[in-house]
């Protein structure tokens, strides 16, 4: 198994040399409502942990859907349910727009090249909805998978497979059927592939 460290450098926000103020993670609109999220999701939503999704750059429509689903229990999470309710009380649009506007920070990730290559081959079945590079399709309500931590992606696939995420939702029936055809190792490779993209 070949492992290499890939240092990515996407979305670097460069402060203007002319002195024009650039809204950073602590003075961007919505910060006063989004600041507490960084304890678990990282400054500006740039999580560096395996199990926590990156919120930086997340499409506002998908952020809002996730908050709705956590608050209603369609996505089951003891941790996120109260926080989703909190975000809704504060104004979900402001929080969603804050994270959508945050640049993805460069991040060192361990890439298992064999897993990524295998995941890329298997991703053909996902591409019909998520796109060739996993960028998603907002018009059809399909989220981007690019650059999310592999462990987070795999956990979500396992939840779909067990029908424990959005149970009974018709739009997800084919996705869940696909997940059921895959074992743990296959899901891990798919997750490794999508985690390696967009960085």
């Amino acid at each position, binding site marked *: 198994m070949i492992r290499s460290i890939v240092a990515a450098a996407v979305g670097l926000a460069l402060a203007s040399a002319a002195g024009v103020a650039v809204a950073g993670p602590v003075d961007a609109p919505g910060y006063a409502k989004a600041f*507490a999220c960084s304890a678990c999701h990282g400054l500006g939503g740039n999580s560096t942990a395996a199990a926590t999704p990156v919120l930086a750059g997340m499409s506002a429509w998908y952020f809002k859907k996730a908050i709705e689903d956590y608050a209603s229990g369609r996505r089951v999470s003891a941790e996120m349910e109260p926080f989703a309710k909190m975000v809704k009380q504060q104004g979900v649009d402001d929080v969603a727009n804050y994270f959508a506007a945050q640049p993805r920070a460069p991040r060192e990730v361990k890439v298992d090249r064999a897993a990524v290559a295998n995941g890329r081959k298997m991703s053909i079945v996902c591409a019909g909805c998520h796109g060739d590079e996993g960028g998603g399709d907002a018009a059809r309500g399909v989220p981007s998978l690019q650059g999310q931590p592999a462990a987070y992606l795999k*956990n979500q696939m396992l939840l779909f497979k067990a029908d424990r995420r959005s149970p009974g939702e018709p739009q997800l029936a084919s996705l869940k059927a696909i997940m059921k055809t895959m074992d743990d190792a296959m899901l891990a490779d798919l997750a490794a592939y999508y985690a390696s993209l967009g960085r």
Partner: protein
Amino acid sequence: MGHVTRRQFLRSAGGAVAVAGLSGCRTGAGEIAPPSGRRVIVIGGGWGGATAAKYLRMADPAIEVVLLEPSTRFVSCPFSNLVLSGVRKLPSLTFGYDGLRTHGVILRHELAQALDADQRRVRVADGYLAYDRVIVSPGVDFQWEQIEGLAAAKDTVLHAWKAGPQTVALARQLQEMADGGVVVMTVPPVAYRCPPGPYERACQIAWFLKTRKPKSTLLVLDANPSIVSKAALFRAAWQSYPNLEYRQSNKVVKVDPAKREVTTEFGDVVRYDVVNIIPPQRASGIVVEADLVGADKRWCEVDHLTYESLKAKNVHVIGDATIGLPVPKSGTIANAQGKIAAAAVVSLLNGRAVAPMAPLNTCYSWISDREVIAVVNAYRIDHGKVVQIEQKLTPGPSTVYADHAVAWATNIWNDILA
């Protein structure tokens, strides 16, 4: 930098250039540096103070931020109970302060000896530091005098309630105890740092004994009438630990290390082989001596939006030292309060309105080497006060929550220090 004037220095202090600032600016009358109009002193480099210092600099790089913290290393209390069971080593919980320096925080590794709120200055070893506002994140001190014999036995009767050498020493005492021994630990009366912490510790010690010294037992003597936090989850977890005996309403009032005995307030005498006394607590000495504590003489009341002390202007108190908010004395809360106080101080120094900011809490407890339970609290601001929206517990223990706990630690340690 000696030839640069203070004004030029401040103008240029947009980056990581401020480190040498104070030492070259000594003036008369014991003042190490003249008031700059833009200086915030942060007392205490723990979860609240280190966060506040970093976020002050990120929000307004023109503000000079001086952090007073005697220790050169940050040691995480969360996860340190895992050192007692040997699941973790202390170095994996130990970090430097270099990240704060890259934000331009001026670190002075020394004790803030006294806070003079009237003169707006802090006494340090070689004089005074003036401030425009001060954020005090002093943590807790122990009330040794509440337990007879404890003050004289500080070096052998360990608390291990501030992660560091005592954590390692208590782990060693547990490892060296002969199998068949009795470990006694105490839970202090509320309020104290980290409400579920003592019960997580009981789990870790019981797990260690069960797996390494199966003839040994753990006796938990709780000063409180019941388990203070996550009660049902801990009670369920303890089903796996028949070697753990829990006695509520058993306040320990005396320790005799020569006889290896503790005495409860009812006069029961219990013999131990290893003892861990978590003493009663109050806000750290500096805020008690500055008379920032309330009628209880233990904790500091603050404004819920700015964390400014109700007893002194321009003094903001955060973290475990505060009382009167519906929040636990937890690391996540201290981290959130650090950000809120920093934003409020920056707004106040710049003549802007203070935005209401509600904290949140996540708290993970390890009930074995691999399973975790959690509680979270969501809040809102209502008429200038912090109000709880909801508290929710995990349905039970899980390795999934262990993954979440590690993820939380990874991101929050970076949020505080990187």
